[in-house]
Protein backbone atom coordinates (compact mmCIF):
# COMPACT_ATOMS: atom_id res chain seq x y z
CA UNK A 1 0.00 0.00 0.00
CA UNK A 2 1.49 3.33 -1.01
CA UNK A 3 1.72 6.16 1.46
CA UNK A 4 0.43 9.55 0.36
CA UNK A 5 4.02 10.78 0.00
CA UNK A 6 5.08 7.85 -2.18
CA UNK A 7 1.95 8.28 -4.31
CA UNK A 8 2.79 11.92 -4.95
CA UNK A 9 6.37 11.03 -5.91
CA UNK A 10 5.18 8.40 -8.38
CA UNK A 11 2.69 10.83 -9.90
CA UNK A 12 5.40 13.48 -10.16
CA UNK A 13 7.69 11.05 -12.00
CA UNK A 14 4.89 10.10 -14.37
CA UNK A 15 4.03 13.76 -14.96
CA UNK A 16 7.65 14.35 -15.97
CA UNK A 17 7.47 11.38 -18.31
CA UNK A 18 4.31 12.81 -19.84
CA UNK A 19 5.99 16.20 -20.30
CA UNK A 20 9.00 14.54 -21.91
CA UNK A 21 6.72 12.68 -24.32
CA UNK A 22 5.01 15.95 -25.25
CA UNK A 23 8.41 17.58 -25.76
CA UNK A 24 9.50 14.77 -28.03
CA UNK A 25 6.27 15.02 -30.00
CA UNK A 26 6.94 18.73 -30.60
CA UNK A 27 10.54 18.25 -31.77
CA UNK A 28 10.07 15.21 -33.98
CA UNK A 29 8.79 15.36 -37.52
CA UNK A 30 9.83 16.04 -41.08
CA UNK A 31 11.10 19.42 -39.90
CA UNK A 32 13.17 18.85 -36.75
CA UNK A 33 12.76 21.79 -34.39
CA UNK A 34 15.04 22.33 -31.40
CA UNK A 35 13.88 22.79 -27.83
CA UNK A 36 14.81 26.52 -27.62
CA UNK A 37 12.67 27.26 -30.69
CA UNK A 38 9.80 25.22 -29.23
CA UNK A 39 9.99 27.12 -25.96
CA UNK A 40 10.07 30.38 -27.88
CA UNK A 41 7.02 29.58 -29.99
CA UNK A 42 5.09 28.29 -26.95
CA UNK A 43 5.82 31.65 -25.31
CA UNK A 44 4.31 33.44 -28.29
CA UNK A 45 7.45 34.51 -30.18
CA UNK A 46 7.55 33.96 -33.90
CA UNK A 47 10.43 31.77 -35.01
CA UNK A 48 10.94 29.41 -37.91
CA UNK A 49 8.54 26.54 -37.43
CA UNK A 50 6.21 28.37 -35.02
CA UNK A 51 3.23 27.59 -37.20
CA UNK A 52 4.06 23.90 -37.38
CA UNK A 53 4.43 23.77 -33.60
CA UNK A 54 1.31 25.71 -32.68
CA UNK A 55 -1.03 24.72 -35.52
CA UNK A 56 -0.06 21.11 -36.11
CA UNK A 57 2.10 19.37 -33.57
CA UNK A 58 0.86 20.88 -30.29
CA UNK A 59 -2.87 20.30 -30.90
CA UNK A 60 -2.16 16.78 -32.10
CA UNK A 61 0.09 15.98 -29.13
CA UNK A 62 -2.44 17.38 -26.67
CA UNK A 63 -5.27 15.43 -28.32
CA UNK A 64 -3.12 12.29 -28.12
CA UNK A 65 -2.31 12.86 -24.48
CA UNK A 66 -5.95 13.49 -23.62
CA UNK A 67 -7.19 10.42 -25.49
CA UNK A 68 -4.55 8.11 -24.05
CA UNK A 69 -5.32 9.39 -20.57
CA UNK A 70 -9.07 9.03 -21.08
CA UNK A 71 -8.78 5.48 -22.40
CA UNK A 72 -6.50 4.31 -19.60
CA UNK A 73 -8.73 5.95 -17.01
CA UNK A 74 -11.90 4.52 -18.53
CA UNK A 75 -10.28 1.08 -18.72
CA UNK A 76 -9.26 1.18 -15.06
CA UNK A 77 -12.78 2.26 -14.06
CA UNK A 78 -14.47 -0.43 -16.17
CA UNK A 79 -12.19 -3.10 -14.69
CA UNK A 80 -13.30 -2.09 -11.21
CA UNK A 81 -16.95 -1.65 -12.18
CA UNK A 82 -17.14 -5.10 -13.77
CA UNK A 83 -14.60 -6.62 -11.34
CA UNK A 84 -13.03 -8.11 -14.41
CA UNK A 85 -9.38 -7.62 -15.33
CA UNK A 86 -10.24 -8.25 -18.98
CA UNK A 87 -12.60 -5.30 -19.24
CA UNK A 88 -11.57 -2.34 -21.39
CA UNK A 89 -13.30 0.91 -22.32
CA UNK A 90 -14.82 -0.68 -25.42
CA UNK A 91 -16.19 -3.80 -23.78
CA UNK A 92 -19.63 -2.27 -23.26
CA UNK A 93 -20.02 -1.28 -26.88
CA UNK A 94 -19.30 2.43 -26.63
CA UNK A 95 -16.66 2.45 -29.35
CA UNK A 96 -18.97 0.36 -31.52
CA UNK A 97 -21.69 2.99 -31.21
CA UNK A 98 -19.23 5.77 -31.95
CA UNK A 99 -17.95 3.76 -34.91
CA UNK A 100 -21.45 3.39 -36.37
CA UNK A 101 -21.97 7.16 -36.06
CA UNK A 102 -18.60 8.03 -37.57
CA UNK A 103 -18.85 5.50 -40.43
CA UNK A 104 -22.31 6.80 -41.36
CA UNK A 105 -21.02 10.37 -41.36
CA UNK A 106 -18.03 9.43 -43.52
CA UNK A 107 -20.16 7.36 -45.87
CA UNK A 108 -22.39 10.35 -46.54
CA UNK A 109 -19.37 12.63 -46.87
CA UNK A 110 -20.24 14.88 -43.95
CA UNK A 111 -17.67 17.45 -42.73
CA UNK A 112 -15.21 16.67 -39.96
CA UNK A 113 -17.11 18.26 -37.09
CA UNK A 114 -20.21 16.24 -37.98
CA UNK A 115 -18.17 13.02 -38.03
CA UNK A 116 -17.15 13.84 -34.46
CA UNK A 117 -20.69 14.88 -33.59
CA UNK A 118 -22.25 11.66 -34.90
CA UNK A 119 -19.52 9.57 -33.27
CA UNK A 120 -20.28 11.18 -29.92
CA UNK A 121 -24.02 10.73 -30.43
CA UNK A 122 -23.45 7.07 -31.28
CA UNK A 123 -21.32 6.57 -28.18
CA UNK A 124 -23.93 8.16 -25.90
CA UNK A 125 -26.68 6.22 -27.67
CA UNK A 126 -25.08 2.82 -27.01
CA UNK A 127 -24.27 3.87 -23.46
CA UNK A 128 -27.94 4.57 -22.75
CA UNK A 129 -29.07 1.49 -24.67
CA UNK A 130 -26.74 -0.86 -22.77
CA UNK A 131 -27.60 0.76 -19.47
CA UNK A 132 -31.34 0.59 -20.14
CA UNK A 133 -31.24 -3.03 -21.28
CA UNK A 134 -28.95 -4.21 -18.50
CA UNK A 135 -30.85 -2.29 -15.86
CA UNK A 136 -34.16 -3.76 -17.05
CA UNK A 137 -35.65 -5.34 -13.96
CA UNK A 138 -33.36 -3.42 -11.63
CA UNK A 139 -31.04 -6.33 -10.86
CA UNK A 140 -28.10 -4.85 -12.79
CA UNK A 141 -25.58 -7.57 -12.11
CA UNK A 142 -22.05 -7.35 -13.43
CA UNK A 143 -22.54 -10.37 -15.67
CA UNK A 144 -25.70 -8.99 -17.17
CA UNK A 145 -24.11 -5.61 -17.85
CA UNK A 146 -21.10 -7.28 -19.45
CA UNK A 147 -23.19 -9.60 -21.62
CA UNK A 148 -25.48 -6.80 -22.76
CA UNK A 149 -22.48 -4.65 -23.63
CA UNK A 150 -20.74 -7.42 -25.55
CA UNK A 151 -23.87 -8.19 -27.56
CA UNK A 152 -24.56 -4.54 -28.39
CA UNK A 153 -20.89 -4.20 -29.42
CA UNK A 154 -21.28 -7.20 -31.72
CA UNK A 155 -24.35 -5.58 -33.29
CA UNK A 156 -22.44 -2.35 -33.87
CA UNK A 157 -19.58 -4.35 -35.38
CA UNK A 158 -21.98 -5.84 -37.90
CA UNK A 159 -23.35 -2.41 -38.84
CA UNK A 160 -19.81 -1.09 -39.29
CA UNK A 161 -18.88 -4.05 -41.49
CA UNK A 162 -22.03 -3.42 -43.55
CA UNK A 163 -21.13 0.23 -44.11
CA UNK A 164 -17.52 -0.65 -44.96
CA UNK A 165 -18.64 -3.17 -47.55
CA UNK A 166 -20.85 -0.69 -49.40
CA UNK A 167 -18.45 2.26 -49.05
CA UNK A 168 -16.74 3.56 -52.21
CA UNK A 169 -13.01 2.88 -52.34
CA UNK A 170 -12.09 6.56 -52.11
CA UNK A 171 -13.59 6.75 -48.64
CA UNK A 172 -12.46 3.35 -47.43
CA UNK A 173 -8.97 4.43 -46.43
CA UNK A 174 -10.04 7.15 -43.99
CA UNK A 175 -12.82 4.94 -42.64
CA UNK A 176 -10.35 2.18 -41.85
CA UNK A 177 -7.93 4.66 -40.26
CA UNK A 178 -10.73 5.97 -38.05
CA UNK A 179 -11.56 2.45 -36.94
CA UNK A 180 -7.94 1.66 -36.12
CA UNK A 181 -7.56 4.92 -34.25
CA UNK A 182 -5.97 7.97 -35.83
CA UNK A 183 -5.09 11.35 -34.40
CA UNK A 184 -4.62 12.93 -37.84
CA UNK A 185 -8.35 13.35 -38.23
CA UNK A 186 -9.18 14.91 -34.88
CA UNK A 187 -11.17 18.09 -35.11
CA UNK A 188 -10.19 19.68 -31.82
CA UNK A 189 -8.20 18.67 -28.77
CA UNK A 190 -9.68 20.64 -25.91
CA UNK A 191 -12.97 18.72 -25.36
CA UNK A 192 -10.97 15.55 -24.68
CA UNK A 193 -8.50 17.29 -22.38
CA UNK A 194 -11.34 18.97 -20.51
CA UNK A 195 -13.17 15.66 -20.09
CA UNK A 196 -9.97 14.05 -18.80
CA UNK A 197 -9.57 16.72 -16.13
CA UNK A 198 -13.26 16.51 -15.24
CA UNK A 199 -13.37 12.72 -14.89
CA UNK A 200 -10.17 12.68 -12.83
CA UNK A 201 -11.52 15.36 -10.52
CA UNK A 202 -14.86 13.63 -10.10
CA UNK A 203 -13.43 10.17 -9.42
CA UNK A 204 -10.70 11.30 -7.00
CA UNK A 205 -13.00 11.68 -3.95
CA UNK A 206 -14.36 8.15 -4.48
CA UNK A 207 -11.07 6.38 -5.11
CA UNK A 208 -10.94 4.61 -1.74
CA UNK A 209 -14.53 3.45 -2.22
CA UNK A 210 -13.49 2.05 -5.60
CA UNK A 211 -10.82 0.02 -3.81
CA UNK A 212 -13.60 -1.63 -1.85
CA UNK A 213 -15.82 -2.04 -4.92
CA UNK A 214 -12.98 -4.02 -6.52
CA UNK A 215 -13.23 -6.42 -3.57
CA UNK A 216 -16.89 -7.17 -4.23
CA UNK A 217 -20.26 -5.45 -4.20
CA UNK A 218 -21.64 -6.69 -0.91
CA UNK A 219 -18.28 -6.43 0.82
CA UNK A 220 -18.10 -2.79 -0.26
CA UNK A 221 -21.66 -2.15 0.86
CA UNK A 222 -21.02 -3.75 4.26
CA UNK A 223 -17.97 -1.50 4.68
CA UNK A 224 -20.02 1.63 4.11
CA UNK A 225 -20.02 2.30 0.35
CA UNK A 226 -23.30 3.47 -1.20
CA UNK A 227 -22.73 0.89 -3.89
CA UNK A 228 -25.55 1.55 -6.33
CA UNK A 229 -25.00 5.28 -6.53
CA UNK A 230 -21.26 4.75 -6.96
CA UNK A 231 -21.75 2.22 -9.77
CA UNK A 232 -24.08 4.49 -11.70
CA UNK A 233 -21.59 7.33 -11.38
CA UNK A 234 -18.65 5.19 -12.46
CA UNK A 235 -20.54 3.77 -15.43
CA UNK A 236 -21.48 7.25 -16.53
CA UNK A 237 -17.99 8.71 -16.09
CA UNK A 238 -16.18 5.80 -17.75
CA UNK A 239 -18.61 5.95 -20.67
CA UNK A 240 -18.19 9.69 -21.00
CA UNK A 241 -14.40 9.35 -20.96
CA UNK A 242 -14.55 6.67 -23.66
CA UNK A 243 -16.97 8.68 -25.77
CA UNK A 244 -14.75 11.78 -25.60
CA UNK A 245 -11.69 9.79 -26.61
CA UNK A 246 -13.35 7.85 -29.42
CA UNK A 247 -14.86 11.03 -30.79
CA UNK A 248 -11.44 12.68 -30.92
CA UNK A 249 -9.22 9.85 -32.12
CA UNK A 250 -11.35 6.91 -33.23
CA UNK A 251 -11.09 3.49 -31.63
CA UNK A 252 -7.48 3.44 -30.50
CA UNK A 253 -7.12 -0.07 -29.16
CA UNK A 254 -4.99 -1.57 -26.45
CA UNK A 255 -4.31 1.53 -24.31
CA UNK A 256 -7.46 1.12 -22.25
CA UNK A 257 -6.91 -2.55 -21.55
CA UNK A 258 -3.20 -2.65 -20.99
CA UNK A 259 -2.11 0.60 -19.40
CA UNK A 260 -4.17 -0.01 -16.22
CA UNK A 261 -2.56 -3.45 -15.98
CA UNK A 262 0.94 -2.09 -16.58
CA UNK A 263 0.44 0.52 -13.90
CA UNK A 264 -1.15 -2.01 -11.55
CA UNK A 265 1.81 -4.36 -11.92
CA UNK A 266 4.22 -1.55 -11.19
CA UNK A 267 2.52 0.23 -8.30
CA UNK A 268 -0.36 -1.93 -7.05
CA UNK A 269 -4.12 -1.64 -7.20
CA UNK A 270 -4.83 1.32 -4.93
CA UNK A 271 -7.25 3.37 -7.05
CA UNK A 272 -6.19 6.62 -5.38
CA UNK A 273 -2.85 6.24 -7.10
CA UNK A 274 -3.84 3.94 -9.96
CA UNK A 275 -6.40 6.25 -11.59
CA UNK A 276 -4.23 9.37 -11.98
CA UNK A 277 -1.13 7.26 -12.71
CA UNK A 278 -2.96 5.35 -15.44
CA UNK A 279 -4.18 8.63 -16.95
CA UNK A 280 -0.63 10.03 -17.09
CA UNK A 281 0.93 6.81 -18.37
CA UNK A 282 -1.81 6.28 -20.96
CA UNK A 283 -1.42 9.85 -22.17
CA UNK A 284 2.36 9.53 -22.45
CA UNK A 285 2.09 6.18 -24.26
CA UNK A 286 -0.33 7.51 -26.85
CA UNK A 287 1.75 10.63 -27.48
CA UNK A 288 4.88 8.49 -28.02
CA UNK A 289 2.99 6.06 -30.23
CA UNK A 290 1.52 8.86 -32.32
CA UNK A 291 4.92 10.50 -32.72
CA UNK A 292 6.24 7.20 -33.99
CA UNK A 293 3.16 6.76 -36.19
CA UNK A 294 3.79 10.00 -38.07
CA UNK A 295 7.61 9.80 -38.26
CA UNK A 296 8.55 6.12 -38.75
CA UNK A 297 7.81 5.92 -42.48
CA UNK A 298 7.23 9.65 -43.11
CA UNK A 299 5.77 11.20 -45.16
CA UNK A 300 3.33 8.30 -44.95
CA UNK A 301 1.43 8.07 -41.67
CA UNK A 302 0.39 4.97 -39.76
CA UNK A 303 -2.78 4.68 -37.66
CA UNK A 304 -1.70 5.18 -34.06
CA UNK A 305 -3.80 2.24 -32.84
CA UNK A 306 -1.43 -0.13 -34.64
CA UNK A 307 1.57 1.47 -32.93
CA UNK A 308 0.08 1.36 -29.42
CA UNK A 309 -0.34 -2.38 -29.79
CA UNK A 310 3.12 -2.89 -31.30
CA UNK A 311 4.74 -1.00 -28.40
CA UNK A 312 2.44 -2.29 -25.70
CA UNK A 313 2.36 -6.01 -26.40
CA UNK A 314 6.06 -6.77 -25.75
CA UNK A 315 6.22 -4.44 -22.73
CA UNK A 316 3.15 -6.07 -21.27
CA UNK A 317 4.37 -9.61 -21.86
CA UNK A 318 7.73 -8.75 -20.31
CA UNK A 319 6.14 -7.33 -17.17
CA UNK A 320 3.70 -10.22 -16.95
CA UNK A 321 6.50 -12.79 -17.02
CA UNK A 322 8.39 -10.84 -14.32
CA UNK A 323 5.27 -10.60 -12.14
CA UNK A 324 4.79 -14.32 -12.58
CA UNK A 325 8.31 -15.07 -11.35
CA UNK A 326 8.01 -12.84 -8.31
CA UNK A 327 4.95 -14.65 -7.08
Amino acid at each position, binding site marked *: *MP*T*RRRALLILLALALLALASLGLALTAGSLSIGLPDIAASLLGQTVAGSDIILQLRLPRALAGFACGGLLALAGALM*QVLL*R*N*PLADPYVLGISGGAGVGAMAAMLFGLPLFLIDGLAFAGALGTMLLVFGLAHGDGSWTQTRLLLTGVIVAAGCGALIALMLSVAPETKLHSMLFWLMGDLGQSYSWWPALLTLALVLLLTA*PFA*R*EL*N*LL*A*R*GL*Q*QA*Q*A*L*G*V*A*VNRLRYAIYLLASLATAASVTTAGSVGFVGLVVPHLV*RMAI*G*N*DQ*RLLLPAAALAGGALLVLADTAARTLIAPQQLPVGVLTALIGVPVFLYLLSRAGLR*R
Partner: protein
Amino acid sequence: MMHTVYLQAEQLVVRIGQHAACCGLDLQVEAGQHWAILGRNGAGKSTLLSVLAGLRPPTDGRVTVNQQTYREMGARQAAQWRGWLAQQQGDAFASSVLETAVAGRHPHLARWDWEGENDLRIARQALLAVGLHAFEARDVQTLSGGERQRLAIATLLCQQPHLFLLDEPLTHLDLNHQVAVLDLFRAQTDAGAAIVSVLHDPGLAWRYASHVLLVHGDGRTEQGRRDDILTSERLSALYGHPLQRFELNGQVGFLPG
Protein backbone atom coordinates in the same frame (compact mmCIF):
# COMPACT_ATOMS: atom_id res chain seq x y z
CA MET B 1 -24.35 -2.42 28.83
CA MET B 2 -26.76 -5.33 29.38
CA HIS B 3 -30.18 -5.15 27.72
CA THR B 4 -28.98 -2.65 25.16
CA VAL B 5 -30.76 -3.73 21.99
CA TYR B 6 -28.25 -3.67 19.12
CA LEU B 7 -30.40 -5.31 16.47
CA GLN B 8 -34.13 -5.55 16.23
CA ALA B 9 -36.38 -7.15 13.63
CA GLU B 10 -40.11 -6.37 13.73
CA GLN B 11 -42.64 -8.45 11.79
CA LEU B 12 -39.87 -9.28 9.37
CA VAL B 13 -40.80 -11.11 6.17
CA VAL B 14 -38.00 -12.35 3.92
CA ARG B 15 -39.01 -14.08 0.72
CA ILE B 16 -36.82 -15.39 -2.09
CA GLY B 17 -39.18 -15.92 -5.00
CA GLN B 18 -41.93 -18.22 -3.73
CA HIS B 19 -39.82 -19.43 -0.86
CA ALA B 20 -40.08 -17.81 2.61
CA ALA B 21 -37.16 -17.69 5.02
CA CYS B 22 -39.27 -16.05 7.70
CA CYS B 23 -42.80 -14.68 8.03
CA GLY B 24 -43.37 -12.08 10.72
CA LEU B 25 -40.15 -12.66 12.64
CA ASP B 26 -39.66 -10.58 15.80
CA LEU B 27 -36.10 -10.69 17.03
CA GLN B 28 -34.10 -8.72 19.58
CA VAL B 29 -30.35 -9.08 19.81
CA GLU B 30 -28.80 -7.45 22.85
CA ALA B 31 -25.25 -6.49 23.67
CA GLY B 32 -23.24 -9.46 24.88
CA GLN B 33 -25.47 -12.03 23.15
CA HIS B 34 -24.42 -14.48 20.49
CA TRP B 35 -27.27 -15.76 18.36
CA ALA B 36 -26.68 -18.81 16.21
CA ILE B 37 -28.93 -19.34 13.19
CA LEU B 38 -29.41 -23.01 12.29
CA GLY B 39 -31.37 -24.54 9.45
CA ARG B 40 -31.18 -26.84 6.47
CA ASN B 41 -29.38 -25.94 3.25
CA GLY B 42 -31.48 -23.53 1.24
CA ALA B 43 -33.69 -22.58 4.18
CA GLY B 44 -32.76 -18.93 3.63
CA LYS B 45 -30.32 -18.43 6.52
CA SER B 46 -27.86 -16.38 4.49
CA THR B 47 -30.59 -14.31 2.87
CA LEU B 48 -32.07 -13.58 6.28
CA LEU B 49 -28.64 -12.59 7.55
CA SER B 50 -28.02 -10.23 4.63
CA VAL B 51 -31.40 -8.60 5.30
CA LEU B 52 -30.40 -8.20 8.93
CA ALA B 53 -27.14 -6.66 7.66
CA GLY B 54 -29.04 -4.18 5.50
CA LEU B 55 -27.49 -5.55 2.31
CA ARG B 56 -30.89 -6.34 0.80
CA PRO B 57 -34.28 -4.90 1.61
CA PRO B 58 -36.79 -7.00 3.57
CA THR B 59 -39.92 -8.16 1.76
CA ASP B 60 -41.87 -6.64 4.62
CA GLY B 61 -41.30 -5.51 8.18
CA ARG B 62 -38.44 -3.52 9.60
CA VAL B 63 -34.87 -3.97 10.77
CA THR B 64 -33.28 -1.48 13.11
CA VAL B 65 -29.71 -1.27 14.36
CA ASN B 66 -29.29 0.80 17.49
CA GLN B 67 -32.88 2.05 17.00
CA GLN B 68 -32.28 3.30 13.46
CA THR B 69 -33.12 1.69 10.13
CA TYR B 70 -30.28 1.27 7.64
CA ARG B 71 -31.84 3.91 5.43
CA GLU B 72 -31.84 6.42 8.25
CA MET B 73 -28.24 5.59 9.11
CA GLY B 74 -26.68 5.71 5.67
CA ALA B 75 -24.07 3.24 4.44
CA ARG B 76 -21.08 4.78 6.19
CA GLN B 77 -22.60 5.15 9.65
CA ALA B 78 -24.10 1.68 9.37
CA ALA B 79 -20.62 0.31 8.67
CA GLN B 80 -19.35 1.85 11.88
CA TRP B 81 -22.03 -0.14 13.69
CA ARG B 82 -22.36 -3.52 12.07
CA GLY B 83 -19.89 -5.75 10.33
CA TRP B 84 -20.76 -8.56 7.95
CA LEU B 85 -18.67 -11.59 7.06
CA ALA B 86 -19.41 -12.94 3.59
CA GLN B 87 -19.89 -16.64 3.01
CA GLN B 88 -17.39 -16.59 0.19
CA GLN B 89 -14.38 -14.47 -0.55
CA GLY B 90 -13.40 -13.66 -4.11
CA ASP B 91 -10.52 -11.53 -5.29
CA ALA B 92 -10.56 -10.29 -8.85
CA PHE B 93 -7.32 -8.34 -8.42
CA ALA B 94 -4.03 -8.88 -6.64
CA SER B 95 -3.74 -7.21 -3.25
CA SER B 96 -1.52 -7.75 -0.23
CA VAL B 97 -2.81 -9.36 2.94
CA LEU B 98 -2.14 -6.20 4.96
CA GLU B 99 -3.98 -4.02 2.41
CA THR B 100 -6.95 -6.36 2.50
CA ALA B 101 -7.11 -6.28 6.30
CA VAL B 102 -6.76 -2.51 6.52
CA ALA B 103 -9.68 -2.12 4.07
CA GLY B 104 -11.83 -2.73 7.15
CA ARG B 105 -10.82 0.71 8.42
CA HIS B 106 -12.73 2.42 5.60
CA PRO B 107 -15.81 3.52 7.61
CA HIS B 108 -13.58 5.13 10.22
CA LEU B 109 -11.63 7.25 7.73
CA ALA B 110 -12.78 10.60 6.37
CA ARG B 111 -13.04 11.01 2.60
CA TRP B 112 -9.55 12.34 1.98
CA ASP B 113 -7.80 10.41 4.76
CA TRP B 114 -5.17 7.79 4.00
CA GLU B 115 -4.69 4.85 6.31
CA GLY B 116 -2.31 5.99 9.03
CA GLU B 117 -0.04 4.33 11.60
CA ASN B 118 -2.96 3.68 13.92
CA ASP B 119 -4.94 1.87 11.20
CA LEU B 120 -1.92 -0.26 10.29
CA ARG B 121 -1.40 -1.11 13.95
CA ILE B 122 -5.03 -2.24 14.23
CA ALA B 123 -4.66 -4.27 11.04
CA ARG B 124 -1.48 -5.97 12.27
CA GLN B 125 -3.18 -6.81 15.58
CA ALA B 126 -6.09 -8.34 13.69
CA LEU B 127 -3.73 -10.39 11.51
CA LEU B 128 -1.96 -11.57 14.65
CA ALA B 129 -5.30 -12.55 16.19
CA VAL B 130 -6.10 -14.85 13.25
CA GLY B 131 -2.53 -16.13 12.94
CA LEU B 132 -1.71 -14.41 9.64
CA HIS B 133 0.93 -11.98 10.96
CA ALA B 134 3.67 -13.67 8.95
CA PHE B 135 1.63 -13.23 5.72
CA GLU B 136 1.43 -9.42 5.60
CA ALA B 137 3.04 -9.02 2.21
CA ARG B 138 1.53 -12.11 0.56
CA ASP B 139 -0.86 -11.66 -2.36
CA VAL B 140 -4.41 -12.62 -1.35
CA GLN B 141 -4.79 -14.60 -4.56
CA THR B 142 -2.14 -17.06 -3.35
CA LEU B 143 -3.83 -17.84 -0.03
CA SER B 144 -5.55 -21.14 0.70
CA GLY B 145 -9.29 -21.18 1.35
CA GLY B 146 -8.87 -21.32 5.12
CA GLU B 147 -6.23 -18.58 5.15
CA ARG B 148 -8.46 -16.38 2.99
CA GLN B 149 -11.34 -16.94 5.39
CA ARG B 150 -9.19 -15.95 8.37
CA LEU B 151 -8.09 -12.84 6.47
CA ALA B 152 -11.75 -11.91 5.94
CA ILE B 153 -12.24 -12.25 9.69
CA ALA B 154 -9.21 -9.99 10.25
CA THR B 155 -10.75 -7.38 7.93
CA LEU B 156 -13.93 -7.59 9.97
CA LEU B 157 -12.01 -7.17 13.24
CA CYS B 158 -10.35 -4.05 11.79
CA GLN B 159 -13.80 -2.62 11.18
CA GLN B 160 -14.44 -2.83 14.95
CA PRO B 161 -18.22 -2.98 14.71
CA HIS B 162 -20.58 -3.35 17.68
CA LEU B 163 -22.68 -5.92 15.90
CA PHE B 164 -21.11 -8.84 14.02
CA LEU B 165 -23.18 -10.68 11.39
CA LEU B 166 -21.29 -13.81 10.38
CA ASP B 167 -22.35 -15.92 7.42
CA GLU B 168 -20.78 -19.31 8.04
CA PRO B 169 -17.65 -18.00 9.74
CA LEU B 170 -16.13 -21.50 9.91
CA THR B 171 -16.11 -22.21 6.16
CA HIS B 172 -12.81 -23.81 5.04
CA LEU B 173 -11.41 -23.79 8.60
CA ASP B 174 -9.75 -26.76 10.31
CA LEU B 175 -11.08 -27.80 13.71
CA ASN B 176 -8.36 -25.93 15.61
CA HIS B 177 -9.03 -22.75 13.67
CA GLN B 178 -12.80 -23.18 14.09
CA VAL B 179 -12.41 -23.14 17.85
CA ALA B 180 -9.83 -20.32 17.74
CA VAL B 181 -12.13 -18.16 15.60
CA LEU B 182 -15.14 -18.77 17.82
CA ASP B 183 -13.00 -17.97 20.90
CA LEU B 184 -12.01 -14.74 19.16
CA PHE B 185 -15.66 -13.82 18.68
CA ARG B 186 -16.48 -14.82 22.26
CA ALA B 187 -13.94 -12.23 23.38
CA GLN B 188 -15.93 -9.68 21.35
CA THR B 189 -19.24 -10.52 23.06
CA ASP B 190 -17.47 -10.50 26.43
CA ALA B 191 -16.37 -6.97 25.59
CA GLY B 192 -19.98 -5.96 24.88
CA ALA B 193 -20.47 -6.68 21.17
CA ALA B 194 -23.39 -8.67 19.80
CA ILE B 195 -23.14 -11.49 17.27
CA VAL B 196 -25.52 -13.25 14.90
CA SER B 197 -23.90 -16.15 13.10
CA VAL B 198 -25.05 -18.79 10.64
CA LEU B 199 -23.63 -22.09 11.87
CA HIS B 200 -23.86 -25.71 10.77
CA ASP B 201 -22.72 -27.60 13.84
CA PRO B 202 -25.29 -27.63 16.69
CA GLY B 203 -22.50 -28.73 19.06
CA LEU B 204 -20.46 -25.60 18.33
CA ALA B 205 -23.64 -23.54 18.56
CA TRP B 206 -24.26 -25.02 22.01
CA ARG B 207 -20.72 -24.24 23.04
CA TYR B 208 -20.57 -20.64 21.86
CA ALA B 209 -24.06 -19.21 21.38
CA SER B 210 -26.24 -17.79 24.10
CA HIS B 211 -29.37 -17.88 21.93
CA VAL B 212 -30.47 -19.84 18.90
CA LEU B 213 -32.79 -19.11 15.97
CA LEU B 214 -34.01 -22.12 13.99
CA VAL B 215 -35.05 -21.43 10.38
CA HIS B 216 -37.28 -24.18 9.04
CA GLY B 217 -37.41 -23.01 5.45
CA ASP B 218 -41.20 -22.77 5.21
CA GLY B 219 -41.52 -19.45 7.02
CA ARG B 220 -41.59 -20.98 10.50
CA THR B 221 -38.87 -19.99 12.95
CA GLU B 222 -38.17 -20.90 16.57
CA GLN B 223 -36.05 -18.84 18.90
CA GLY B 224 -34.95 -18.73 22.49
CA ARG B 225 -32.16 -19.42 24.93
CA ARG B 226 -29.65 -22.02 23.85
CA ASP B 227 -30.77 -24.72 26.31
CA ASP B 228 -34.44 -24.37 25.39
CA ILE B 229 -33.89 -24.61 21.65
CA LEU B 230 -31.01 -27.05 21.25
CA THR B 231 -32.95 -30.22 22.10
CA SER B 232 -32.81 -33.44 20.10
CA GLU B 233 -36.55 -33.18 19.31
CA ARG B 234 -36.35 -29.70 17.84
CA LEU B 235 -33.11 -30.35 15.96
CA SER B 236 -34.38 -33.67 14.59
CA ALA B 237 -37.45 -31.88 13.28
CA LEU B 238 -35.31 -29.03 11.89
CA TYR B 239 -32.94 -31.23 9.91
CA GLY B 240 -35.54 -33.92 9.13
CA HIS B 241 -33.15 -36.52 10.49
CA PRO B 242 -32.98 -38.07 13.98
CA LEU B 243 -30.29 -36.47 16.15
CA GLN B 244 -29.08 -37.70 19.52
CA ARG B 245 -27.81 -35.39 22.23
CA PHE B 246 -24.91 -36.56 24.34
CA GLU B 247 -22.80 -35.01 27.06
CA LEU B 248 -19.11 -35.51 27.61
CA ASN B 249 -17.02 -33.68 30.22
CA GLY B 250 -19.55 -30.87 30.40
CA GLN B 251 -19.72 -30.42 26.60
CA VAL B 252 -22.84 -31.15 24.62
CA GLY B 253 -22.82 -32.65 21.15
CA PHE B 254 -25.37 -33.98 18.68
CA LEU B 255 -24.86 -37.12 16.64
CA PRO B 256 -26.96 -38.13 13.66
CA GLY B 257 -28.82 -41.34 14.47
